């Protein structure tokens, strides 16, 4: 909850209020108060906060303003600066407050941005609406190659094979010859198919030599082929490399560069369809191994549907290849995998795709165990200097990635600044490979990070980013993490909420000895603005069987406050203690801003064994009774039930070939039969490559199943004219419901899961906790 001092709780809850609101826009570096133009009943705000699922939730707002005379209309030049106030992207603040003791107090409820204003001329109104900073994340798209988290290394490429003598040696030379034999002719080439197709020798435009072949494929809707027969003789079982330069200068049709056996017309090898951007030169390469001795032909093949395509071909090379052992590039120790590879083969850095591609002549692999990168066998790589750029992943902490995304969205200048502004709990999680698909938004990325660690992300009332765990409870007592005691376990059969209660069993107590059960997770709690600490307690012996039964809280200097606990044997007891006063405390009271541990401790009176069971620890921010709230509605929300959880994680291996389609993703699944039988099957499917090992996937299947298998109970109510600045998804409150006069009031507690402000009436949705 936002700080309210010097306003008191009694003032906030008083039955007579003087409500206030404030609507401001940022214009020329100053906040301009436009409250006096706000039309009655038009202002509404839906706050952002932690909700049930990891999907980030944006806050939104809308308001209508009196525009009599067209004061705010950009087409009314006589009203400057009013006519410049409303533009898309304008920053907006909306605050709700009240007047107490003659002073106006406001609490900001949203800091947002204006969408396109909507002017109603007939009604003399302007309608405004927008969202909070989440809009920036939604508008930020991630693109290759900067859509991964890591760095890159640059290597000298090592040639993949040793070439033998040049076999492309046309008698008298021709325009495509490499080396010193080049001549201005295509005497050995001929048109094989179709009328308008031509092949000529032209002056060089690619910068590789003096001449080059021009092949105009113009067969009017048919196949177009030129060829050079009996280029050279090849020997069965010998591997040959073919390398050539090519460029399409006109048209849209792909071309194939093929090698054929002259005697049998059998295809021995080829480039695959070449379909480059026009006027850009490329290097084509492939290898082939004939099965019989004989001469070979070169065919250039093009299917033209309409119009013509013009190709330039140069520097054709055919040579025997003596394969060298596959060279493996040693990646840095920090490398957790390869994201993206670029190779410069004389025409600038171009991507090389992972796995075996196109008949084995492309692609790369990574040996993660030995951190070795290597090209696919069959890919022809020439020797080069600083021409291989390998982008690789490094281990990342989710909160740092969120901070990076905030910086990329332009909200902060760098990660450090974003982290300083962000309110977050450490995730204690490391992710080996962090990337997001090209074209996805920063908001998608944040959602995946939230999903990976079951956190929630939102911008709070002051537009500070918040990255926190799903639960606002102090401890759900569903796990022993952070707890210390004599013999701890989780009792899943006897509980007040969630997956179980925490049980501490003392088998052999000594009379007079203290037996504490303590909760001391990393970090501290600021309880200075909190009201009560609440939890459930059960023991097989009543408090009267012990010398003392107490709840202690300690600060970081070991100053303490305690409360005596009373309870009956074998019955759950709701403990509810006002934090500001106890039954005793240290000489110096504890600093409630630095509380770091809780002790539930019993002093034994005899040697009888006993247990303590604890459940659902919360500290509350504010309390209402029946005269403070109205329109109360309790309901069970079955729409949120998910009793089968399936998580698909990262691919376990790179594809073995271009045609491989079999998925190899890590997969986990959990379900609960009892819930399925009771409510029908409802599946939660998560496809998130940030889950990168089976153990994590199995653990999160269990976490999400426990959270969603049973329906939650919610309470909706309104609080008119009371501007209490509760925070969505952060605050825990108590309230009391009561049916007709004379009935017994029922105390309730829960986490604020939604806040909607309609002028001076605030509607809450509360997720009830036991």
């Amino acid at each position, binding site marked *: 909850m936002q700080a309210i001092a010097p306003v008191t709780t009694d003032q906030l809850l008083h*039955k007579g*209020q*003087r*409500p206030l609101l404030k609507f401001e826009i940022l214009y020329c570096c100053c906040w301009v108060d436009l409250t006096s133009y706000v039309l009655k009943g038009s202002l509404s705000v839906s706050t952002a906060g932690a909700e049930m699922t990891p999907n980030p939730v944006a806050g939104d707002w809308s308001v209508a303003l009196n525009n009599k005379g067209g004061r705010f209309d950009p087409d009314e030049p006589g009203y400057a600066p009013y006519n410049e106030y409303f533009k898309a992207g304008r920053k907006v603040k909306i605050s709700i407050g009240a007047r107490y003791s003659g002073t106006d107090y406001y609490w900001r409820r949203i800091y947002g941005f204006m969408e396109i204003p909507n002017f109603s001329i007939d009604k003399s109104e302007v309608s405004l609406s927008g969202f909070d900073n989440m809009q920036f994340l939604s508008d930020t798209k991630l693109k290759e190659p900067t859509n991964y988290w890591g760095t890159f290394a640059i290597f000298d490429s090592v040639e993949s094979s040793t070439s033998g003598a040049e076999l492309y040696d046309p008698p008298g030379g021709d325009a495509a010859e490499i080396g010193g034999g080049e001549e201005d002719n295509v005497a050995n080439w001929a048109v094989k198919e179709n009328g308008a197709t031509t092949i000529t020798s032209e002056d060089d435009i690619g910068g590789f030599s003096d001449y080059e072949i021009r092949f105009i494929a113009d067969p009017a809707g048919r196949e177009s082929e030129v060829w050079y027969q009996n280029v050279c003789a090849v020997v069965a079982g010998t591997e040959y490399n073919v390398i050539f330069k090519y460029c399409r200068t006109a048209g849209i049709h792909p071309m194939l560069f093929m090698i054929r056996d002259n005697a049998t017309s059998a295809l021995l090898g080829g480039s695959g369809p070449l379909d480059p951007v026009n006027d850009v030169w490329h290097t084509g390469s492939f290898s082939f191994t004939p099965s019989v001795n004989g001469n070979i032909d070169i065919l250039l093949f093009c299917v033209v549907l309409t119009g013509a395509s013009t190709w330039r071909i140069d520097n054709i090379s055919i040579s025997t290849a003596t394969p060298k052992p596959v060279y493996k590039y040693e990646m840095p120790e920090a490398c957790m995998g390869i994201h993206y590879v670029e190779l410069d083969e004389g025409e600038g850095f171009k991507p090389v795709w992972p796995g075996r591609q196109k008949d084995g002549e492309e692609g790369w692999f990574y040996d993660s165990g030995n951190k070795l990168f290597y090209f696919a066998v069959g890919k022809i790589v020439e020797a080069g200097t600083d021409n291989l750029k390998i982008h690789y992943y490094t281990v990342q902490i989710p909160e740092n990635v969120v901070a990076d995304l905030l910086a990329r969205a332009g909200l902060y200048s760098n990660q450090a600044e974003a982290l300083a502004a962000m309110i977050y709990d450490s995730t204690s999680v490391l992710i080996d490979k962090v990337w997001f698909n090209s074209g996805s938004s920063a908001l998608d990325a944040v959602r995946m990070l939230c999903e990976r660690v079951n956190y929630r992300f939102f911008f709070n009332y002051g537009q500070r980013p918040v990255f926190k765990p799903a639960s606002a409870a102090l401890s759900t007592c569903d796990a022993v993490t952070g707890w210390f005691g004599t013999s701890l376990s989780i009792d899943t059969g006897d509980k007040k909420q969630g997956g179980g209660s925490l049980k501490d069993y003392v088998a052999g107590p000594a009379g007079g000895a203290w037996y504490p059960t303590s909760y001391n997770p990393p970090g501290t709690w600021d309880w200075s603005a909190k009201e009560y600490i609440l939890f459930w307690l059960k023991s097989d012996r009543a408090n009267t069987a012990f010398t003392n039964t107490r709840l202690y809280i300690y600060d970081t200097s070991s100053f303490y406050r305690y409360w005596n606990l009373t309870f009956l044997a074998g019955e759950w007891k709701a403990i509810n203690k006002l934090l500001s006063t106890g039954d005793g405390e240290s000489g110096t009271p504890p600093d409630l801003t630095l509380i770091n541990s809780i002790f539930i401790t019993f002093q034994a009176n005899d040697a009888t064994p006993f247990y303590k069971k604890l459940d659902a620890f919360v500290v509350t921010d504010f309390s209402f009774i*029946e*005269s403070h709230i*109205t329109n109360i509605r309790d309901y069970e929300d079955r729409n949120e039930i998910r009793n089968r959880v399936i998580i698909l994680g990262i691919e376990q291996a790179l594809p073995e070939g271009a045609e491989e389609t079999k998925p190899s993703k890590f997969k986990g699944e959990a379900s609960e039969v009892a819930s399925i039988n009771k409510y029908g099957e409802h599946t939660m499917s998560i496809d998130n490559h940030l889950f990168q090992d089976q153990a994590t996937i199995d653990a999160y299947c269990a976490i999400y199943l426990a959270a969603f298998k049973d329906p939650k109970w919610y309470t909706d109510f309104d609080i008119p*004219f009371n501007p209490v600045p509760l925070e969505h998804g952060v605050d825990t409150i108590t309230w009391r*419901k009561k049916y007709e*006069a004379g009935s017994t009031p029922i105390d309730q507690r829960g986490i604020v899961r939604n806040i909607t402000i309609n002028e001076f009436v605030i509607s809450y949705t509360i997720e009830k906790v036991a």
Partner: protein
Amino acid sequence: MACPTKNVYLGPVGGGIDAEILPKVKWVGGAPDFPTTIDPQTEEATMSDRSRRLAFFDSVEDWGLGWGYLTYDQLKDLRDLIALRQILKYRNDFVDNTEYDVYISSFSSGPTFPKMRGYPYYRADMTLRQA
């Protein structure tokens, strides 16, 4: 000692209120009563236990002004104020020296003696509402 001059002021914001003295409020018989109506702005909500919670907003006041013997030029001055079509400043020394933002919410006028043509005096009634 002469009585201090008391005036009623009504003029545009920023125009200098002293320059906008209205015609003397003239009457026959008793002193002017300057009728005032206060319209309290409140909202009420019924809570879960049937108790009520109240919101109090700033009240809105209406002031009535009347004239019985205006010349045509004086009447035109009043009509010109209406023609401004904007929020005005108002002060009535007969009541206190507070300045209010107001607008003219109603105005009516006519001859003081309808059946006496050639008797050039007019009556006028104006209601000012707090802006």
